[in-house]
């Protein structure tokens, strides 16, 4: 899968850094549909597997939500490059989520996010995390964007 944004660009855009960076690649951006598709390769080297759970590595649901939230920031940055270029703070307002099946080591987690409403100061997105084309998590995320003073 070819990347439209590589890890360098992702690291430059997201305020989150290793070990709390959960997007490896941006696969597609559709400005007309206001949507983005990102990839997270789930690896045994991910720090959370040390404790979640010993001998039974399952990706925590909250980390899947975080990955979807990070993909949402990348969507915001793609659609509003000027505001995102000023390195604002991003914060979560509300999350409605459903979890369907566990995500395990070796899974390619596709993060698909579509904007429902996007403003300079925040947005509402619908997001789906998929493994092998099957939805493992769906969420509606409300987030805020606040310029640094």
């Amino acid at each position, binding site marked *: 899968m070819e990347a439209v944004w590589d890890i360098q660009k992702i690291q430059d855009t997201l305020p989150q850094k290793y070990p709390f960076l959960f997007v490896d690649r941006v696969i597609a951006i559709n400005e007309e549909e206001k949507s983005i598709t990102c990839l997270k390769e789930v690896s045994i080297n991910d720090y959370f597997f040390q404790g979640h759970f010993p001998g039974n590595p399952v990706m925590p649901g909250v980390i899947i939500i975080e990955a979807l939230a990070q993909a949402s920031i990348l969507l915001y940055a793609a659609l509003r490059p000027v505001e995102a270029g000023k390195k604002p703070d991003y914060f979560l307002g509300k999350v409605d989520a459903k979890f369907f099946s566990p995500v395990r080591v070796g899974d390619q987690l596709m993060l698909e996010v579509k904007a429902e409403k996007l403003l300079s100061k925040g947005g*509402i997105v619908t997001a789906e995390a998929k493994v092998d084309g099957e939805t493992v998590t769906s969420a509606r995320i409300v987030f805020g964007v606040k310029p640094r003073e």
Partner: protein
Amino acid sequence: MSDFDTIKKEVRALVSDITEVPEEELTDEATFTDDLGIDSMMALEIVASIEKKYKVVIPEEKIPTITSLGNVFLMLEELLGK
């Protein structure tokens, strides 16, 4: 009841649902932030829900003017041309 009275009733219920403020406290005059504790994230949800329900687009520059339910009605009246 006129069409717009019905819309007002629907919007009041929608705002109450999002903000968890009881409908009887949602007077036209009560200010969202000071009187009702509604934050900008809830305001964003209100805007998105109204847009979806009434198939209108609320311009970003109008959003700071939405400070009470009365203001929402005024804006909606304008957008729907009622």
